[in-house]
């Protein structure tokens, strides 16, 4: 059940230019959160910013959770000033988690830039609950935007790097790297990143005949399925279900459920 908790900041540091990791103490969130879910952070008291900021759980520890984010605007810039020992109001956990499918033999993560944020928790859950170690394709515009490589290595994951400018790993798109890994029957892809990248990954998975889960991001007001502000168009043709809520029906969706034509 989602709730609102006031959490103490245990650690908050810049891990790469413009990218921060926030660790907050909350046995409640840590006890309830599942990989793929998210929470709504109150940046500060008062009316600016007016809305909370939705962010996924990067890792879920025994009595704390970590959040990995990128400064995108004024809200995240203000958030980055929060220091150890201060408190922050967090609403959650919210949304549907990544599915953990025991019948799948091979799991491949496709992460684009800050889209890597929900994957460390998923890798840990897969290792602990399924006994399967996922492979990870880490893609970004440039080397400094490749995050979490060390964490995945520590978990024993095979990591494939790709950058748009060739500054690290292959100079290729993540979907091209995915296709070269020859994923066959029994493989499931889990993807999070820019919409164009998830679309390309979805198309590649369709061609390969393998399932693809995508974790979407959207501006949202409530995070609870109420405001209907964060919807994306689905492939469902029933009027009542044509628009799906990223916050409540997702953020994790089977890629075939999303109408990618607009992206």
């Amino acid at each position, binding site marked *: 059940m989602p709730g609102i908790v006031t959490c103490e900041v245990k650690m908050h540091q810049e891990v790469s230019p413009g990218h921060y990791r926030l660790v907050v103490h909350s046995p409640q969130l840590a006890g309830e959160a599942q990989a793929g879910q998210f929470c709504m952070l109150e940046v500060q008291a008062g*009316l600016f910013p007016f809305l*909370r900021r939705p962010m996924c759980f990067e890792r879920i520890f025994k009595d704390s959770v970590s959040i990995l984010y990128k400064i995108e605007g004024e809200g995240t810039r203000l958030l980055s000033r929060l220091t150890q020992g201060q408190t922050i109001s967090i*609403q959650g956990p919210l949304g549907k988690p990544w599915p953990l499918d025991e019948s799948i033999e091979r799991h491949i993560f496709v992460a684009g830039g800050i889209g890597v944020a929900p994957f460390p928790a998923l890798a840990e859950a897969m290792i602990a609950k399924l006994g399967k170690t996922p492979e990870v394709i880490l893609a970004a515009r440039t080397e400094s935007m490749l995050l979490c490589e060390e964490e995945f290595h520590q978990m024993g994951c095979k990591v494939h790097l790709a950058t748009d400018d060739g500054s690290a790993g292959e100079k290729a798109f993540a979907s091209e790297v995915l296709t070269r890994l020859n994923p066959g029957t029994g493989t499931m892809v889990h993807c999070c990143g820019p919409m164009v990248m998830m679309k390309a990954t979805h198309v590649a998975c369709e061609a390969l005949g393998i399932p693809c889960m995508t974790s979407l991001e959207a501006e949202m007001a409530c995070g609870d399925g109420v405001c209907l502000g964060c919807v994306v168009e689905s492939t469902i043709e029933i009027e*009542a279900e044509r628009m799906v809520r990223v916050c409540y029906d997702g953020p994790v969706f089977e890629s075939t459920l999303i109408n990618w034509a607009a992206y």
Partner: protein
Amino acid sequence: MGTSVDLSINLGGLKMKNPVTVGSGTFAYGQEYNSYFDVSRLGAVTTKSLSLQPRAGNNPPRLVETPAGMLNAIGLQNVGIDVYLKEKAPWLREHGCTIIGNIYGASPEEYAELAQRLEAEGAADAIEANLSCPNVHNAKTARGCTLVAQDPELVKAYTEAIRAATKLPLFIKLSPNVIDIAEPALAAEAAGADAISAINTITSMGINPETRKPILSNIVGGLSGPAIRPVAVKLVWDLSKVLKIPVLGMGGITNASDAMQFILAGATGVAIGSYTFRHPTAAMEVIDGLEDYCQRHDVAKITDLVGAMEV
């Protein structure tokens, strides 16, 4: 909490145990926020606008944050009256909620049918007719936004049609986008409305200078949140001066102090809107805060404060 304060109100025939409800569209159908507080504590739950058929609403993007508020063009996405009657209303009834059923139709006949069905099924205790949603016209083709609530003759015709279809207390929800809000309000009153709900969102828009494109796919949306509160308080004051029927005031309320501005301006009831998105327990805190206000000011009945601004 003391029990000495009487927070109950009679809003155009709707008995509420306290003056606090929620703005249509900010509380879905009630159930969603029950994990944060007991929603039956509300004076009433106001539903998302219900239409005869389910609506998918506008294309995204539909929402953007603004200074002290937000801009939305949801376009009345809703489950439709059938699903509401089958799945949503029973939950509200089981949990002892008083229900204001908000309705939206494309014609007076549709509004009348919606009101009649809600009454026949016992699925609402009052009807709030949304004659003022700014987001159901395509701004690319329509000349500006024309709303029923902007034309007193149309307000009269729609109100008469709904009035003839139901005996439930009937609230007409008006738009701030008019020269004189008294005109549509008096038209509604003359046609048999029992209360006026004010205000709906203020029509507005945003443009991304980098892409030169509108921020909302619908181009135009509705502004809500504390940014619009002073506008709403003033319009409620305007209404209270001319109407015999009560006003349900709303627009940017975040706490009991904000709610008191509306009550002192002449609102009998108040609705918490967008701020619930930021702070899901806001409405409950307003109820507690109103009781505290009355105790601090030695007021026995909240209704003694309606329109009690001292000038």
